[in-house]
C-alpha cells in the first residue's frame, strides 16, 4: 500500500511530524513501512519559465534559440536556451532546467554551446521530469511540457521550483500490509492506525451529495442468486456523465499512490478504493441488456472479454455479474471490456459490493489475473463499508461536476450485521502477555482503534475482519502498549534436554568425517530425472520411481532424489571445473523413497566423494573403515559388486573397483571408483571415488557402549606368513581362514604386503600377513604358536593357498 502523506493529512494532521518519526511509530505499532520517498527528490534547480522569444538557430534548421524569463532564478535577466523541440512558441510556460540542475535517473544539465550558440540550460519534457501524459493529460509525450493553469491550483510564478508549481512534491510511504488487515489498505484505515499510534485527532466526514430525483428501480433490477458468495450488492446510477481527465489534485494523489490516472470515472473508483479500501466498479448502462444485474455463478464454458482485451472462459464455481444474457464482469476481479466506460458513455452504474474472499481468490487464480480489486476482496472485506464507499463516489462525482447522481439506490443486503463481541478480560490479557497494564489503559487503546468496550466484551469496528478471539484483543492491547515494553522473562520450570540417539549418531559421523579431512557439503534435495541416466542407473531401476513435484521451477529440480549420489557427482564436477586440484567431500542428507503410502520414507544417507592427489580406492575405503570404527560399527564385510540387484547404484561404479559394505548379511553401503562413463557424463576429467552409506540402517548396527578389555599380562607371539594364492582370490577370504584357524588366541591379523611379479608364478600373488597371538592365561609357547600356524596352513590349503617357498 502506497500512502500519499498529503492525502493522509486530510484525515489526520501529521504535517508537522518528522517523516522518520511517523514511519518508525507506525512500524512499531504494526503497520510496517517498507520504503518512503519524496516525489521529485532527484530534481533540483528546475524552475518555471516563460518563453519570451523563439527564433531559428542560424547554423541549424532544426534548432531554435529561446529567450526565457525565469523570474528571480535568472536574477531578473532572461536566459538563453537552445532547444531542438518543435512545439515551443513565444508566451509558453515551460519547465526550465537551469545550469547545474539535476533530473531523474542521475541526469545533470550544464550550460554549453550548441552549434556555436550558447545555451544556459534545457527546456524539459514530461518524460525528463519522470512524468507521463497520464499525469498531465493536456500535454504531449514527445515535446516540451507546455504548462497550463488548472482550476483549483495556484497560478504559476516565474522562477518557482517546478516541483512546487506542478505538485510533484508529495511524500509516499509504502506499507507492508499483512493479509489479515485489508482495512489498512486504505487511507482511512491508516489514518485510524496513525490516530491510535500518535494519539492525534482524526476525522472521517460522512460523504454528502445533492443528487437528482429519479427512481433507480425503473432503470435497473438487481438479483443476488448466490448470497453466500455475494452478501451485499449496492448499485447507484449517475446520469449525463461528462468523461474527461480528473482535476490535478486527484491525479496527484493517484500518482503518489502508484495508480495511473485514466479519466474521471475510472479515477473516482480507484480513488474510493484507495481511500476507503473498498473496490468499486462502473458500467455503461447502455450495455446492460434487459436492464438487469444478476449476481450468479457462471455457466460452464461461458466466456467474457475482460477490460484487458482477453477472452476468458469461465466455469460454474466462478461468480459473475451478468445482465439478462451474458456476464458483464467477473465478480470482484475485473469488468468486461464491452460494458466499460467509454468516451461517449451517458449513464453509468456504480457497483459497490462485497464478495466472498475465497471465491474471488480461487477465481482470480484460475483465470490468472490478480487485480487491485481481487487482491482486496480475497482477504475478506466488510460489507458495511460498501455503502459509505458508494456515497463517497457520489460526492466526488458532484465535486468534479461530471454527472448527475440519482438519489435512490438499490441495496441488496444479506450481510450479517450482528456486532461480534469478543471477550475482554484485562486480567487474562495481563496473564497472557506477562504484563501489568491497567484495565483503563487497555480500554483507552481499544477505543483509539474505534473498538467499543461494554459488559466484558470488546466490539471491533466492522472493517476489522481479523478480530475473532480474545488473543486478538490481547494483540491490539500489546501493540499499542508497545511490544518492546513487555518485560523479558525466562520460562519458568526446569527442563533438561539432549540430542536424540539418531542426532548423536549423525553428529558422530560428521565429526569422524571432518577429522579425516572431509569437507561437508549441502545440496538440493530435488534433482532432474535425467540425472539417473548420468549415474548409469538401469532403465528399470527402482530408484527411478520418485516423488514428483507438479509445479517445479524447472526440470533440473523436478523430482525428489532417491539417491544422494547425483548430488555428490555434481559437486565434484563443479569443483573440478573450478580447477580445485583435490577435494574430499561428504554430505549427510535425505533420500525420498516412495513407499505406496501418502508420504515417502526419508532415510538419511552419508555420501562421500573425492578426487585428486594420489587418492585411490583404498583411500575412500579406509576413510569409511575409520569412520565405522569411530561410530562403533565393527566386523563389516566388503564384497566386490557389479549387480544392481544387490545394490541399486552398483552400475554407477567401475565394475572392477566397487564393493558393497555389509554387516550380518545386510547391505548398508557401497564404495568404489566412479564408472568412467559417469565421470564423462559429469565432465570430471580425473578418477574420482564415491561412497554411499545408509545411516538410518547403519545406526541399528552400531554399538554405543564400548566394553573395556584388561591390558595383556602375558607377551604375544607373532608369526609372519607369506602366502601364495590365486590372483583372483579376494584377500578377505584368506583373512577369514586365518581367523577361523587361529581361534580365540588370535589378537590381530595384519596384511602388510601384496606382491605379484617375477618370483611368483603367473596368475598367482603373494600376500604377507603378520599374525599376533596371545593368551590371557599364560605365555604362549612356541609349540602353541607353531600349532596355530599349522592349522592356518591347513585351512588355507582349502583355498588353494600355500606358504610361499
Amino acid at each position, binding site marked *: 500500500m502506497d500512502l500519499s502523506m498529503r492525502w493522509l493529512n486530510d484525515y489526520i494532521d501529521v504535517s508537522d511530524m518528522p517523516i522518520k518519526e511517523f514511519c518508525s511509530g507506525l*512500524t*512499531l*505499532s*504494526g503497520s*510496517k513501512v517498507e520504503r518512503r520517498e519524496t516525489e521529485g527528490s532527484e530534481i533540483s534547480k528546475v524552475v518555471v519559465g516563460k518563453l519570451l522569444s523563439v527564433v531559428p538557430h542560424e547554423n541549424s534548421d532544426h534548432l531554435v534559440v529561446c529567450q526565457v524569463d525565469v523570474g528571480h532564478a535568472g536574477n531578473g535577466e532572461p536566459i538563453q536556451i537552445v532547444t531542438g523541440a518543435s512545439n515551443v512558441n513565444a508566451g509558453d510556460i515551460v519547465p526550465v532546467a537551469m545550469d547545474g540542475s539535476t533530473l531523474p535517473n542521475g541526469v545533470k544539465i550544464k550550460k554549453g554551446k550548441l552549434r556555436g550558440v550558447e545555451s544556459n540550460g534545457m527546456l524539459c519534457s514530461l518524460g525528463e521530469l519522470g512524468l507521463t501524459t497520464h499525469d498531465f493529460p493536456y500535454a504531449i509525450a514527445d515535446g516540451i511540457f507546455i504548462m497550463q493553469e488548472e482550476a483549483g491550483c495556484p497560478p504559476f510564478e516565474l522562477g518557482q521550483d517546478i516541483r512546487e508549481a506542478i505538485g510533484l512534491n508529495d511524500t509516499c510511504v509504502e506499507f507492508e500490509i*499483512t*493479509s*489479515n488487515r485489508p482495512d489498512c489498505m486504505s487511507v482511512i484505515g491508516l489514518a485510524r492506525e496513525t490516530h491510535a499510534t500518535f494519539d492525534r485527532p482524526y476525522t472521517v466526514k460522512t460523504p454528502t451529495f445533492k443528487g437528482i430525483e429519479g427512481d433507480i428501480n425503473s432503470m435497473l433490477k438487481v438479483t443476488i442468486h448466490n448470497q453466500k458468495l455475494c452478501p451485499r450488492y449496492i448499485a447507484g446510477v449517475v446520469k449525463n456523465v461528462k468523461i474527461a481527465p480528473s482535476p490535478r489534485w486527484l491525479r496527484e494523489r493517484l500518482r503518489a499512490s502508484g495508480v495511473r490516472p485514466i479519466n474521471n470515472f475510472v479515477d473516482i473508483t480507484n480513488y474510493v478504493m484507495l481511500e476507503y479500501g473498498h473496490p468499486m466498479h462502473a458500467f455503461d448502462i447502455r450495455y446492460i441488456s434487459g436492464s438487469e444485474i444478476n449476481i450468479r455463478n457462471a455457466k460452464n464454458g461461458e466466456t467474457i472479454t475482460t477490460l484487458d482485451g482477453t477472452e476468458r472462459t469461465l466455469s460454474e464455481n466462478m461468480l459473475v455479474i451478468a445482465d439478462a444474457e451474458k456476464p458483464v464482469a467477473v465478480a470482484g476481479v475485473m469488468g468486461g471490456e464491452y460494458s466499460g466506460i467509454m468516451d461517449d458513455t451517458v449513464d453509468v452504474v456504480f457497483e459497490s459490493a462485497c464478495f466472498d*474472499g*475465497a471465491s474471488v481468490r480461487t477465481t482470480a487464480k484460475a483465470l490468472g489475473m490478480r487485480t487491485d480489486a481481487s487482491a482486496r476482496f*480475497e*482477504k475478506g472485506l466488510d460489507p458495511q463499508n460498501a455503502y459509505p464507499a458508494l456515497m463517497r463516489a457520489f460526492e466526488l462525482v458532484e465535486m468534479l461536476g461530471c454527472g448527475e447522481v440519482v438519489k435512490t439506490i438499490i441495496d441488496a443486503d444479506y450481510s450479517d450485521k450482528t456486532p461480534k463481541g469478543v471477550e475482554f478480560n484485562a486480567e487474562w490479557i495481563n496473564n*497472557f*502477555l*506477562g504484563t501489568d497494564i491497567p484495565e483503563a489503559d487497555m480500554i483507552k487503546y481499544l477505543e483509539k482503534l474505534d473498538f467499543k468496550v461494554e459488559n466484558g466484551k470488546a466490539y471491533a469496528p466492522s472493517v476489522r475482519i*481479523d478480530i475473532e*478471539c480474545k*488473543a486478538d484483543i*490481547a*494483540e491490539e492491547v500489546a*501493540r499499542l502498549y508497545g*511490544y518492546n515494553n*513487555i518485560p523479558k*522473562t*525466562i*520460562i*519458568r*520450570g526446569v*527442563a533438561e*534436554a539432549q*540430542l*536424540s540417539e*539418531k*542426532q548423536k549418531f549423525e*553428529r558422530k559421523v*560428521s565429526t569422524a568425517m*571432518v*577429522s*579425516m*579431512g572431509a*569437507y*561437508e*557439503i*549441502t*545440496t*538440493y*534435495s530435488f534433482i532432474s530425472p535425467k540425472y539417473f541416466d548420468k549415474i548409469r542407473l538401469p532403465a528399470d531401476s527402482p530408484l527411478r520411481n520418485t516423488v*514428483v*513435484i*507438479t509445479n*517445479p*521451477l524447472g526440470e533440473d*529440480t523436478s523430482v525428489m532424489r532417491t539417491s544422494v549420489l547425483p548430488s555428490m557427482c555434481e559437486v565434484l564436477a563443479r*569443483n573440478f571445473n*573450478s580447477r*580445485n586440484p583435490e*577435494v574430499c567431500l561428504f554430505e549427510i542428507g535425505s533420500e525420498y523413497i516412495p513407499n505406496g503410502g*501418502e*508420504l*515417502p520414507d526419508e532415510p538419511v544417507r552419508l555420501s562421500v566423494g573425492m578426487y585428486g592427489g594420489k587418492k585411490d580406492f583404498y583411500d575412500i575405503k579406509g576413510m569409511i573403515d575409520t569412520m565405522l570404527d569411530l561410530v562403533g560399527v565393527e566386523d563389516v564385510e566388503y564384497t566386490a559388486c557389479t549387480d544392481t540387484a544387490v545394490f541399486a547404484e552398483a552400475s554407477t561404479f567401475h565394475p572392477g573397483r566397487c564393493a558393497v559394505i555389509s554387516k550380518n548379511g545386510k547391505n548398508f553401503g557401497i564404495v568404489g571408483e566412479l564408472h568412467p562413463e559417469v565421470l564423462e557424463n559429469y565432465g570430471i576429467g580425473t578418477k574420482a571415488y564415491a561412497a554411499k552409506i545408509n545411516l538410518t540402517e547403519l545406526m541399528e548396527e552400531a554399538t554405543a557402549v564400548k566394553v573395556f578389555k584388561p591390558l595383556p599380562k602375558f607377551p604375544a607371539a607373532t608369526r609372519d606368513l607369506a602366502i601364495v594364492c590365486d590372483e583372483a582370490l579376494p584377500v578377505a577370504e584368506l583373512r577369514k581362514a586365518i581367523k577361523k584357524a587361529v581361534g580365540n588366541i588370535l589378537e590381530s591379523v595384519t596384511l602388510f604386503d601384496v606382491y605379484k611379479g617375477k618370483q611368483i608364478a603367473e596368475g598367482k600373488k603373494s600376500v604377507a600377513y603378520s599374525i599376533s597371538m596371545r593368551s590371557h592365561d599364560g605365555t604362549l609357547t612356541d609349540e602353541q604358536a607353531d600349532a596355530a600356524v599349522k592349522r592356518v596352513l591347513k585351512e588355507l590349503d582349502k583355498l588353494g593357498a600355500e606358504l610361499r617357498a
Partner: protein
Amino acid sequence: MKEQLEKIRQLAEKELAECGAADVLENLRVKYLGKKGELTAILKQMGGLSAEERPIIGQLANEVRKTIEDGISERADALKSELAAKKLKEETIDVTLPGKTQTVGKLHPLTVTLNDIKEIFLGMGFEVVEGPEVETDHYCFEALNMPKHHPARDTQDTFYINDNVVLRTQTSSVQIRTMEKKKPPIRIISPGRVYRSDAVDATHSPIFHQIEGLVIDKGITMADLNGTLELLMKRLYGEDCKIRLRPHHFPYTEPSAEVDMMCFNCHGEGCPMCKNEGYIEILGAGMVHPKVLEGCGIDPEVYSGFAFGIGLERITMGRYEINDLRLLYENDMRFLGQF
C-alpha cells in the same frame, strides 16, 4: 717429598685447566691418581719417612689428592656442559619455516551455525525434533490455521506433489506433529529444510533451512517469548546485540511479531547494509493461536505457548558476511575451506 707433592699439585692444576676433552681428562686422572700414577708413586714412598714426618706428609698428600680429584670432577662437569651446549647450538633450526599442518575437513557453515543454535537451545531445555520434508497439506497449512484459499498461503509459494501433499514451506509442521503426540510441557526446536518456489538469486533459494521453536505449558506469556528471544540473540551475537519486536501477522500465532536486530554497522541510524532501516529482520514469532492448540487437542484455556521461526541462511550469512546465498549450495572448496 713435600716439594714433590707441591710440584705435582701445581702441574696437575695447570694441566687440568688446559684440558679440553674428555679423553685427555681421563689420561690426567690415570696419570695422577691411577695405580701407576705419580701421586700413588709418592705415597708408596711414605714408608721411608720418619714418624714425625709421616702424618704431615700424609695429610699433605691427601690434600693434594683431594684437590686433583675435585679438579677432575669440576673439569668433567664443565666439559659435559660445554658439550651439551655445543650440541644444542648445532641442532638449531629455522623456526620460521612452515609447520606441518594436519589434514582435517570442515563442517558446512550452515551446520556450524545450526550446531551453535542447537547448543543454545539444548542448554535451555529444548529438545531437537525432526519431521518429514514431504508433508501433508494438513500439517503444513490446515492445522496451522491456514485453510485452503487462505490469503496467507500466498506468502509461501508452495511446491505441490499432489492436492494433499506438499514440500513443507516451514518447519512449523513439526509443531503440530509434536503437539499431537506429546502432552505439555513441550519445549522443542525443529530445524530442517523447507521449500518455496522462489527462483534462485543472491537472496533466494527454493530450498533453505528453518529452525522452528515451540514452548507449551501452563502460564507461558509473551514476556517469556521476549526473554527467550533476547537470550538467543545475545548468545548468538554477543551481549551488545539489541533486538526489537514489531507486530506482524502469522495465521498460527496471535499476537504475532517480527523480530529485528539492530544493525551492527550503523547502530540503528540507517545505512546501506540495513537498507536505511537501522534494523535487520531476523525472525518471526508469536503466541500460539488458540485455534492451533485446540486442533491438536490442547485446551487453550489451560495451556498457552509461543513459537518462533528462524531462517538459518539469514543468520549464517549475517555472521560470516556472506553476500550471496548461492555460495552456500555451490559447495566450492575455496568457499568451504573458509569456515
